């Protein structure tokens, strides 16, 4: 590959990767990139998922919290960001918000749980309710009950056999 085609390729790559994070924060590029840790298109089968918004290189000179010198040095991650809340809604326009979660200014990931089947949209907002990240779509679809009952029943049968043997033979055993 020549230098010229390489440059074109890199340009196109930058262009497309920008376009993929299609959500704009007002007219600006969003300062935070919100991601589903389990994988972009992963279907969540247990109602439990993790969201992350890692530190970006360009933003690493954020304000530092006054934690005292000793402790601050030991902290792994004390870079601050503008997000103050994470909103989760059932529609992309965030008109039906189901969860409003306060976010600490140094928090970089969150573990969420107990969601029923459905499509959810998550986005970070600042103190003025302005978006500061892209929107992430999370699809929750629990395991089918058919599969669950097969596994549950086979476990129950094996367990019953073990208990039956233990009661009949082991607990009643006389030396």
């Amino acid at each position: 590959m020549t230098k010229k085609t390489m440059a074109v390729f890199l340009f196109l790559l930058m262009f497309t990767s920008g376009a993929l994070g299609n959500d704009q924060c007002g007219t600006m590029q969003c300062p935070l990139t919100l991601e589903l840790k389990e994988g972009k298109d992963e279907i969540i089968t247990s109602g439990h998922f993790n969201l992350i918004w890692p530190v970006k290189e360009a933003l690493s000179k954020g304000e530092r919290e006054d934690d005292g010198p000793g402790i601050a040095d030991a902290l792994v991650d004390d870079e601050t960001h503008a997000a103050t809340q994470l909103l989760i809604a059932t529609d992309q326009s965030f008109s039906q918000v189901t969860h409003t979660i306060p976010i600490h200014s140094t928090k970089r990931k969150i573990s969420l749980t107990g969601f029923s089947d459905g499509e959810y949209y998550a986005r970070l907002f600042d103190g003025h309710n302005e978006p500061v990240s892209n929107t992430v779509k999370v699809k929750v679809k629990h395991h089918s009950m058919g599969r669950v009952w097969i596994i549950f029943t086979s476990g129950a049968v094996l367990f019953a056999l073990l208990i039956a043997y233990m009661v009949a033979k082991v607990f009643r055993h006389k030396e």
Partner: protein
Amino acid sequence: MDYNPISINTALILLVIFGIVWIFFGWWLGRKNKTLDDFMLAGRNVGLAFAGATAMATWITSNTTLVAPQLTYELGIWGMVGYSLAALGLILFAPMAKRIKELMPEGYTCGDFIRVRYGKPAWIAFLIVSFCYAMGWLVSLGMAGGVLLDTLSGLNYKVGMTVILAICVSYTLLGGLRAVIATDYVQTIIIIVGVLIIGFVCYQSVGLESVYEFNKEKHPELLSLLFPAAMMFLFNNIFFGIGEIFHSNVWWSRALAFRPGIGKKAYLLSGFLWLPIPIVTGFVALAAPSLGLYPDSSDMVGPMVAAKLLGDIGAIFVFIVVFSALASSLDSLLAATSDLVTRDIYNGLIDKAASKEKLHKLSKLVILGLGVVTWILCLPKITTLGALLNFTGAFVASTIWPIVLGLYQRRMSGNFVTAAFVLGTTCGLIGYHMIGFYVAALFSCITSFVICMVGLIVKDDKFDWQRLKHMEKMQ
């Protein structure tokens, strides 16, 4: 992380105090150790109070204090109840502990039993299963210690992990199983009181009704009795727990160390007293969402809620409780794995004529060696080790039926048991990769069960129980 609830200085002071107290205690108890039996099996005469407490403390690991809240947070009510049913392992092991002590009064390890009962191929397969599991557990405990200190105080992971390992290795080395058992007693009391205070404050200050109503609206699956993933997890976790206890030398060495007639009572007592603890530690996690607490990663939900409810004092409580839980399992595992290496690998394979004095010295070196190996494996902080522990479910669940049947059925033959270990583990691993971690132990146990049943029908080994009485040496 949001913040570090306790300062590095406080964490270091606590570590130094714990270190000095436990190591002194270990040295003080170790003065009475004269023989290999004293060191490895605490003189084979442990009474009910110590016996019950040590079984309980060892089963309360970092898993009970960190993973029980995690599973409640992820899988809701079934996660909490399913976790507490791991107590069945202790309860079902109770009559077996009595049988083990009667069958092999001169035995040292579970490896001794498998070797004499089923022969060399089954013994080697069993040692691989057992050793993989023990190392996985040891490393996950060492790592949990480092991660906990890092989260609560900001103390460097490597420093925290090294200090915790060094303390446990030191007192196990100085006092042997006697120190392990006595420290376990004190640690049990500390853990229970700490867990109760955190649970009680949570119940009082947050209120169960508000927790319930909040979750019902926002996180309904947590309260669901038909939560699919949690239902699949339920029996898998039970078999994992039973497999862990039935096969591991941690529990066999205790059965042999307890005074005759004590084993059954001690395991029953510890099982019933352990049963509610994951519910107390777990329900705290249900309160997290209603407190506005959503952890960075779900295994830190317990400490987060405690720190939020009790402030800095809560964080110190969590520190003490989890440290005690870690230490009580780490020391037991060091001692039991060292017995397995000394007796089964060294005395069984390398130097069959080794004297008891030589084995006594060697078992101390092995404890030190295990500590160093664990330390090296913990250094890179491979975050998937929690997953590795679940992975071992495929291994340990294959041992359940061979052990139970081996203790009570003369017919059960060694060839089929070897096949049960190997094929059970293989099927468990296939299930782990094809479906998920929540079926690994179940698939392994089902396969092993089928092979054992075929073995019972096809072949009669006519095993002579007297062969176990005198612990035959390896041919």
